[in-house]
């Protein structure tokens, strides 16, 4: 009976391995009589263990390569079953020379058995091949387990705690009335002047909130700054135009501008079409704004949020139109372009700090102070690790907890 089972199993493995060939075309008559193919020696020392730091859907399988790995093996097939006697099903394969496979298709709590087949596959024609197979011992049972904490992210967790603690500490300090010093940022100080210039010239102010959607923090930071810009525009009775490239950003920005106009007691001056959708397409958006800028010749332009290759196209056109330009983005690659073409640029985190600077609200300023403190700790850590590295202590080896 066992022999029959083994024969059945072997047949099923062969059929499985040949499935791709069968599925292409019917078997070539020339290949009906297949030449014998030498089977490689089987892989040994198969080890299956739970994949660490996962949701219990994976197991790691490793093995010693077949002694014929270089000479005969074309691939290794990983076979899995819920019972030691099979049936074993091929769940994936690796190329020769590879001794590791992660099976991500497991169910938490279920026991599995594995074995590895070394395959020597020789192509006869485009659609037919012959294979020599040898299999390792069966290993198992092994159950995948879900972990409650991803230890590989321990370092991220540590720094997140430190950063959050520092921010919360300084927010509390600020709330208790302690005076906090924050350095000046020229780009933020220039916001009032830029809008003032537009008011004097009787021209528009353009606010471009980038091409990212509302799931990007930079866009949220941009909308925050927009609120402040809208308030100044509403007070000065300056026309504010906000062309956007995402519908959700349009909805949020519209509400923010509406609220800003209401706050300064001018809800009647707000027009819905001040905040309008243009297109989701990156360069379509750039082309549309370039057109508007050349026609309307705004006196001030704000670029805040996530920008990509369109950054310089927008900023150069604004420069050509003679507008005062203030930009801020979280995209490091675009900062040089804004620096070259704009009057003021908020670099990196300055974009996120802008709302705190503009509002001067103690709690927001406290968060900035905490952020700076965390940055100081980062620099200290980098410095210490650098010194350790110079003495031959590699921090990567120390921190690797996987």
């Amino acid at each position, binding site marked *: 009976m066992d022999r029959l089972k083994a024969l059945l199993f072997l047949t099923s493995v062969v059929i499985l391995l040949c499935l*791709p060939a069968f599925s292409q075309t019917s078997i070539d008559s020339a290949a009906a009589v297949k030449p014998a193919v030498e089977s490689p020696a089987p892989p040994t020392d198969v080890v299956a263990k739970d994949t660490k730091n996962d949701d219990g859907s994976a197991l790691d399988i490793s093995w010693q390569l077949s002694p014929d790995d270089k000479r005969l093996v074309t691939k290794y097939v990983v076979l899995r079953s819920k019972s030691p006697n099979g049936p074993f099903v091929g769940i994936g394969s690796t190329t020769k*020379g590879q001794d590791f496979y992660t099976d991500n298709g497991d169910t938490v709590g279920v026991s599995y058995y594995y074995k590895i087949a070394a395959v020597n596959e020789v192509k006869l024609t485009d659609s037919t091949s012959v294979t020599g197979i040898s299999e390792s011992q069966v290993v198992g049972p092994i159950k995948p387990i879900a972990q409650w904490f991803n230890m590989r992210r321990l370092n991220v967790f540590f720094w997140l705690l430190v950063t959050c603690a520092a921010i919360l500490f300084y927010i509390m300090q600020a709330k208790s009335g302690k005076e906090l010093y924050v350095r000046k940022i020229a780009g933020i100080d220039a916001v009032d002047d830029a809008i003032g210039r537009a008011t004097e010239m009787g021209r528009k102010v353009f606010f471009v909130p980038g091409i990212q959607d509302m799931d990007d923090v930079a866009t949220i930071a941009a909308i925050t700054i927009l609120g402040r810009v809208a308030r100044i525009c509403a007070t000065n009775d300056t026309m504010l135009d906000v062309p956007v490239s995402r519908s959700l950003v349009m909805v949020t920005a519209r509400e923010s501008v509406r609220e800003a106009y209401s706050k300064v007691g001018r809800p009647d001056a707000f027009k819905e079409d001040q905040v309008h959708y243009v297109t989701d397409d990156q360069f379509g958006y750039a082309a549309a704004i370039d057109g508007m800028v050349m026609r309307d010749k705004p006196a001030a332009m704000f670029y805040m949020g996530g920008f990509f290759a369109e950054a310089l196209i927008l900023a150069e056109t604004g420069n050509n139109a003679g507008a005062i330009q203030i930009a801020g983005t979280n995209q*490091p690659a675009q900062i040089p372009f804004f620096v070259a073409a704009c009057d003021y640029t908020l670099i990196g985190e300055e974009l996120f700090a802008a709302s705190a600077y503009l509002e001067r609200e103690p709690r927001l300023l406290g968060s900035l102070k905490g952020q700076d403190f965390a940055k100081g700790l980062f620099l200290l850590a980098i410095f210490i690790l650098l010194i350790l590295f110079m003495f031959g202590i590699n921090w990567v080896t120390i921190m690797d907890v996987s």
Partner: protein
Amino acid sequence: MNKYYSWLILAALIIVVAILPKPLVISPTASVIVTILLGIALVWVLVLTIRGHLIGRRVVFLFIGASLTLPFFMNFEMPIKVSPEVKILYDALAKLPPGSKVLAAFDYDPPSAPELQPQADAFMAYAFKHDLKVIIMGLWPQGPQQANMSIDKVLQYPEIRAKNPKYGVDYVNLGFQSGNEFVIQRMGSSFRGMFPRDIYNTDYDKIPLLNGVENFSNIDFVFNLSSGYPGTVEWVQIAVDRYGVKVGAGNTAVQAPSVYPYLSSRKLTGLAGGMSGAWQFEQATQQPGKASTYVLPQTFSHTVVIAFIIIGNAALMVSYRRSKRGEA
């Protein structure tokens, strides 16, 4: 009136382009003469600037236009050196044995195609020549269409036509999936979950190439062509960092500097940046294509930009001199 002149110039240009014999390539001697003329014109602009006549941006545009178009008709040989980052990318591909599964993520759209399409062509040609199995996908809606254009092109190469790569066996196009980086995240557990059917509506399970491809652990290399978000940064942060797969990339020149930090920390396995990356990649893979014809225009345009930086500094000196005279 000026408006009409612009239209007239445009019409004249179109007529000239239409009646020119194609392909028009001028002799090496004529190429040298045109280059010298361009150089003399730049020196003339420099002299004008030093004498106090500052030039407008339209003159800069005119020179850039000339430096980008004229070299297409010239006949110069330019030696190409492969940069270390492109070499890393090529070496990673060269290490893959025949039959390796490579996931090709096309995360760009037509605007970036002039820079990225030559890289796509060179990669596809290399993959087919070396029997790599290519699984195509896109986080940008137009990405998979760009991939199809590339495949159609390389299938015309005689060497590849002889190999006769088959759809579903040697390559497959899974199409576009919305969700940005979340798609990569979910592919970590199941490719099938994100792409139940390929671009031609064939079930995932009915495609022979995808037999046994569950997630990143069944992928030997990821090649990402990216021009922004979502792109290389997301692939590195999720596929490399969380799932340990090797990722190499081709980026637009504008985007490339921002992924250098991942390159030096060895999270990113090679990078071809912009047009220069494209022609170096073609050179490394010994598959000269469209990018190699752009070497000359790019060389000329870089030289013209450098010339204008020098002219700009001459203008600065002139303004200093004037202000000093004013003070005196």
